[in-house]
């Protein structure tokens, strides 16, 4: 009987996400139990399944923990200033409408300092997908209160509990004109991936909120346990209600989390409206911008 050990397997095993990552920048900076990485896995899975060519996808982030996402993805990736990724993405998209432009940032970046750009890009139906990882705190600067911190939750700058009414992000997005609005938690990986894929393939301003834990700051300060406890909370307290009226999906402190696809509608994007208006008024004098072939033609969706 041979005492030799069986030969070691020769095939290398790769995580399917690796091909979308700048592996020379791994390990990343995110803490154990953080939800941003799970959301990135869902994003790359959605990207893969969307069949959109890699060369046509640009990712734009602001500043903060989620703002580091652009730097880890092997795409044309832009790490901009605090709060302004949507405004940068607007210029990028208009200069080359063939690009699928994704804004990936956090709740503080997109809704405090960047709130103005969010509401106007949604109003314009600017063609982009905005993914907000909502961990209800400023992680990078050490756990301050944000516009989505639930009432009574503690943060370093609301040490006695938050008393400011937070934004209900899906309601805000819908009110401002987003054509696609969904919310999932970092526990709902399959649903989140599917939603991101739908949003990527849909023209116009599409928005996805990803409720995700910050075990290091938000959870610890509020004595909510580790990352695993957040997963248990998401599993037990989430309720999927596709099509729920967004006014009814506000989040409270450790409250029930209504998830689902809330809005999926259609109206002309900024690019289409611009071409249609100018063509109608200027007639033959109108000159379509370079790269804009096909913009403003009728579409089916």
């Amino acid at each position: 009987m041979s005492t030799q050990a069986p030969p070691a397997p020769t095939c290398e095993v790769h995580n399917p996400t690796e091909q979308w990552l700048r592996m020379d920048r791994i390990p990343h900076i995110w803490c154990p139990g953080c939800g941003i990485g799970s959301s990135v896995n869902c994003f790359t899975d959605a990207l893969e399944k969307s069949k959109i060519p890699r060369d046509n996808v640009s990712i734009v982030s602001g500043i903060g923990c989620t703002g580091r996402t652009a730097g880890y993805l092997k795409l044309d990736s832009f790490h901009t200033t605090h709060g302004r990724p949507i405004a940068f993405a607007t210029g990028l998209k208009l200069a080359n409408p063939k690009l699928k432009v994704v804004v990936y940032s956090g709740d503080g970046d997109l809704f405090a300092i960047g709130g103005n750009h969010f509401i106007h890009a949604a109003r314009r139906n600017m063609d982009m997908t905005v993914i907000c990882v909502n961990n209800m705190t400023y992680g990078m600067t050490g756990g301050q209160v944000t516009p989505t911190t639930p009432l009574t939750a503690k943060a370093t700058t609301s040490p006695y509990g938050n008393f400011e009414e937070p934004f209900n992000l899906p309601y805000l997005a819908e009110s401002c004109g987003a054509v696609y609005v969904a919310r999932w938690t970092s526990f709902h990986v399959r649903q989140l991936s599917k939603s991101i894929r739908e949003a990527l393939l849909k023209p116009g301003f599409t928005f996805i909120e990803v409720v995700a834990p910050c075990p290091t700051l938000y959870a610890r300060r509020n004595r909510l346990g580790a990352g695993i406890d957040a997963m248990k909370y998401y599993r037990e307290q989430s309720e999927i209600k596709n099509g729920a009226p967004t006014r009814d999906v506000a989040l409270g402190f450790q409250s029930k989390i209504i998830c689902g696809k809330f809005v999926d509608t259609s109206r002309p994007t900024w690019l289409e409206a611009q071409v249609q208006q100018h063509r109608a008024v200027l007639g033959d004098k109108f000159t379509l911008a370079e790269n804009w072939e096909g913009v403003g033609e009728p579409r089916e969706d």
Partner: protein
Amino acid sequence: MKADPKGVLTGSHFIDGDHACAEGALAAGCRFAAGYPITPSTEVVERLASRFPTVGGIFIQMEDELASSIAILGAVWGGAKAATVTSGPGFSLMMEHIGLAVMTETPCVIVNVQRGGPSTGLPTLPGQADMMQARWGSHGDYEIIALSPDSPQECFDLTISAFNLSERFRVPVFVMMDECVGHMIERVVIPDPDEIEIVPRRLTDVPRGGEYLPYRLDGDLIPPMTHAGMGHYPHITGLTHDERGYPAMNAETQDTLVRRLCDKILKNADDIIEIREDGVDGADIVVVSYGITSRVCLPAIREARAKGLKVGWLRLVTVWPFPDRLIRELAGRVKALVVPELNLGQVYYEVERCAQGQATTHLVPHAGGAVHDPEDILRVIEEAAR
């Protein structure tokens, strides 16, 4: 490369500086502009909003100047030549993105039609008090280029120069107009497109999917660019970065990067700097001025010369980078340097610094809201002569 005829309104026009600036942008190949209304600059974007749809350009009125100043950076990485236009308060809001443009080496043009400040100040009246803000307004060490037109014709010409310089050096370039020049109506001659020299963007020749490092130098201090969609997957960040574009937050990388960002301008300063002069050789006193003030000082110089004084006229077409060597050498040859400007001393202190005590230096301050009375400039020239 010559200008695209589509954007060039060849002919003789009677237009103001704001409109001439817009035509300069069109002639330079600018096909994206983002702006927010602000007096006295708005006419520039109004003209672009009207003209762009006929030449394949895109104008978008953004929600504020923060948005405008970064939307143009996005457009540049998308492949466009892009500009934004503003005045004092809007300029203040743009400062963070000037830093981002410097750090990411994004070529772009920012026009500031200066008005009286601080704060809301004098929205409809002239000033030249943003000159130091253009130089130092964003945080950190950096170098930029700023041009100062003194007529509608130069608003056209220098806007083209601004685009060309921004592409050559991958740096934001400022066209520092003022309310007078912006609203002054004069003859503006727009040449044939084949007489307008255009600097195209210097793109990498690395093929799609090849190994492209966004900040690897190739022969000079200015790395070749790429655009989104070219298959190079660059990472572009405002963080201190290495030649891969990856964040590298340490003193060594910072030193290498920040010094190069400064050196690419400073080491080419002689090539960048443009001045105009009259009667400087053999002068005892030279009036150093820029923008509208370089025209306002002319009657004072004429009067002083009529009184027998040897007075020269030196106009800074390029204010930043500052012509250090030129002023230093000049100060060694003359008795006095007189600096009138529509502020309480900005470029004056640069002149004083470069003069190194070789000549006396004399500020003719004005808080803005009007131009100088030439009599006030004459008085200082005469004082300097004593």
